[in-house]
Structure formats: structure tokens, C-alpha cells
């Protein structure tokens, strides 16, 4: 498939618009369960930090942690939707996880214990000749990997935790080739991930969002123990606005 790799002002504007939306909404109070008076930033950071701790050191914990974080991210967007409907979750692109004002984004997570920042476009190994996966959506990388002075790559020595927004054209022009491993044929190698994140910073498509796992080390999230606290009717609007 022929791909247009040149970034347009329109795409940059739309990525910026998404960033501005998240930036404003994060520091407002949550619209659901308002008794606890938490800002969205506080609640997101608390939940994600707790999930990171819960999955630490477990086989398959990276994947479980990323999936759980994706669910919390979507909940955050749904909470923002209660002010004004901006996000949708029904997609025409195979790689999309959500859309903001009809622009689709895929979501990738780098956990707080991540050491090798490879990402996969999709988790499958199709046979030669079968349908090939390619980028169709812009990307949001949620990185909770803390900076480390011992990191081999310069970027990771000073990297900040937060939301990195990568336009579609940048994905296509930067990731020249996918690598493969035993789980996927569409592996985005760590060196490309760094380039993408650097690009986001250089174009001010980055938003700081820090988590503090150590602060929540004594807590866990539990549907079983939470009793009815986490059980809600599907339609939010009915009760919580």
C-alpha cells in the first residue's frame, strides 16, 4: 500500500488538539465518584501505579499490566467525555484503540520496570502472503519508565514519564522496518521507539504524567475485595453527572 509519509500541518494540529484536551482535563476533578475529590491526574497515577506494583515480577506481568493500564486510560477518556463527547472507541482502523474528534490513535505502554523499549504493532505472526499489518493510526506512548543515569541510550538518562504523541506520518517515516521475535512480525525496535519519543518532545507533543509506584506499594486493586464499590450500572450519565 502506498503511504504518505509527509507530515501535514493538519495532522500536527490534530495531534496538538488532542494534547491540549488531555492537558486541560487532567487537572480537573474526576466526574465520577466525586466524593473522593481526586483530580483525574491523581486518580490515573494512583491506579496505574498500583497496577504496576501488582504485576511486578510476574511471568506475563508486562502484558497484563499494559492491558490493565489501557483500560484505565480509556476510563479516563470516558470521564472526560462526560464534559463533552470527544473520544470514541469504535474504530475503522485495525490498529486504533481510541479516536479523538475522529482522529484515530493506537495506545502503547512502557511500564515502570521496562528495560527494553521494543513495542509491537500487533501481536501476531501471519504467514508469508497473508495480510500485512502497517500503521494506520497515530500513536500515543504512555511511558512510565523512569530515567536512569545507567541507561546506555542517552534519551533514557533524562527521559520523563508521560504521554508521547506520535503523528501517523512520523511513524511511517521513522519506522523503516519491522523486526520480528517469537510473538510478532511487527516489532518496533527500541531505537525507533526512542526516535519517536524524541520527535514528540521536539514538537511539543509531550505531556508529563508521573506515577509513584512506591507510594502505593501497600495497596492493591480488587474487584473481589472491593465489594460493590467498583460495580456500576453501564450508563454513567444516569447517576454520576
Amino acid at each position: 500500500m502506498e503511504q504518505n509519509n509527509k507530515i501535514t500541518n493538519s495532522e500536527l494540529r490534530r495531534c496538538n488538539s488532542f494534547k491540549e484536551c488531555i492537558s486541560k482535563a487532567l487537572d480537573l476533578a474526576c466526574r465520577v465518584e466525586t466524593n473522593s475529590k481526586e483530580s483525574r491526574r491523581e486518580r490515573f497515577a494512583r491506579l496505574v501505579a498500583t497496577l504496576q506494583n501488582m504485576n511486578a515480577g510476574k511471568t506475563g506481568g508486562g502484558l497484563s499490566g499494559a492491558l490493565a493500564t489501557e483500560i484505565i486510560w480509556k476510563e479516563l477518556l470516558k470521564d472526560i467525555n462526560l464534559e463533552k463527547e470527544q473520544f470514541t472507541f469504535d474504530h475503522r482502523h485495525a490498529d486504533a484503540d481510541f479516536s479523538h474528534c475522529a482522529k484515530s490513535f493506537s495506545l502503547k505502554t512502557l511500564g515502570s520496570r521496562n528495560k527494553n523499549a521494543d513495542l509491537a504493532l500487533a501481536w501476531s505472526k501471519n504467514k508469508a502472503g497473508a495480510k500485512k499489518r502497517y500503521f494506520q493510526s497515530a500513536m500515543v506512548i504512555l511511558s512510565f519508565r523512569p530515567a536512569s543515569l545507567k541507561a546506555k541510550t542517552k534519551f533514557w538518562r533524562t527521559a520523563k514519564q508521560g504521554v508521547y504523541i506520535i503523528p501517523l506520518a512520523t511513524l511511517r517515516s521513522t519506522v523503516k522496518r519491522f523486526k520480528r521475535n517469537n510473538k510478532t512480525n511487527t516489532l518496533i525496535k527500541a531505537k525507533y521507539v526512542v526516535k519517536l519519543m524524541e520527535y514528540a518532545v521536539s514538537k511539543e507533543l509531550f505531556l508529563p504524567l508521573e506515577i509513584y509506584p512506591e507510594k502505593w506499594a501497600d495497596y492493591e486493586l480488587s474487584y473481589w475485595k472491593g465489594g460493590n464499590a467498583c460495580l456500576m450500572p453501564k450508563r454513567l450519565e444516569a447517576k454520576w453527572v
Partner: protein
Amino acid sequence: MAFSPQEHRAHCKAIKEVLQAGLDQPCSIGDQTETRKQRHLFLASVLQNMSAGTKGAGLSGGIAQENLWREMLADMKVGFTDQPPEGSETAEADYYFKGYPLSHKTIGYKATNPALALAWSKNPPGGLQRTVFTTSMVLLNFKPQSQRSKDANWLEARQGAHIIPLPDLKEIVVHFGSNNKTDSLITTEDVGKLIAFSQDNDFSVYFDFDNTVGEGFVLSYWRGGKKGAVQK
């Protein structure tokens, strides 16, 4: 830890008995007028309904169901744990009963082709092939019995927790299938055989799962605010 076939079966029988008793007892945490079976089946139904029709939800739904099951096991306080005894960890084990390792697989309510993967990987020829079982299995089946099934084993397959001792697992699943995600696929036919074995040999604990009780609800840590987080 090397066990004889008889020892594996004895461990699995003990686990079945513990599950059978524990499921009908009141929950240790929260509403203690509820049995563990009631709470588990209700929450499992909410999770099934949340995942239905969502892209990629098979995997996240499966993980959520497994987490819920583990929480239920922990609530029993009879020796189920995530932690392996020193030196006896196996790659396949998802949890342990008094040190005995168990792998866990879930078959969803709406599974139309309930094949299972031993491991999610496709290693190149010559690479490590994960096609050898090392752990007995707990197979949690939410799929309702259907008279339309063409496979005799699936006609009889009931909802419940089906335990399959390691030696029998190895004997029943001799060949693995492949798809675009794994080379260690346990075929639908073999999954039917595993459930049949468990049922015929009294390794199964049954439940009646009503998928409609969770309709209209969601489970959400976000919406729970601070109340969903509990101290360890």
C-alpha cells in the same frame, strides 16, 4: 519436584475436594452472607458482558477472569498462592496449591471454537518449542452445554472447573495445532477430551453460570474512586 502419576492424581483430587467445599462457603472478605460461588459467578458474568464484542477483549477478558478466580482462591485461605515454593517454579504455573503447581485456562461463555494455547509464542525452527506440559491444569469452562455440538465430548461438557492431572494431560494432548499467534495450540477436539476426562474421573467441580445476571453492569476501578483500592 517429581511426582508419580498416582501422586499427581491424588493432588488433583485433593484440589477438587477443596474447591468443591470452598465454593459453597461464605466469602471471608466483604459481604459474608454471599457464598464464594455466588460472588464469583456474578462478577464473572459482569466481566463476560463487559468484554463481549470488544476488539481484543478475548485476551484482556481472559486475564480479568483469571485474576478474579485467583482472588476467589485466595479468599478460601486454604493454601492457594501465587508464590512458588523455593526451587520449584515452572514456566507454565499460574498458581500453586500448597506448593503444587497449576496452570490455568479459561473458556469464555461465548467461545465458539474453544482451542487453548499452551504458550503464546512462535519460535523459529531450532528454537525453544513450548510443546511439553510440565504442570497439571485447571480449565475453567463458562461455555454452556449445547445440543448442537457435533463433537460428542462437547455435547457433554458442563460449566465448571475441570482439573486435569499432568500425566493424563500428556496422554490426551499429543499433537499441537498452529495459528498466527502460537505453535502450541490445544485443539478444540482435545479440549473436549480433557473436559470429558475430568468429568468421567471425578476431577470436576460444576457450577451453573448465568451470563445474564451481569448485564447492564460494569466493573471499574476508575468509577470506584478510592473505594476500589484496598490495603494488602
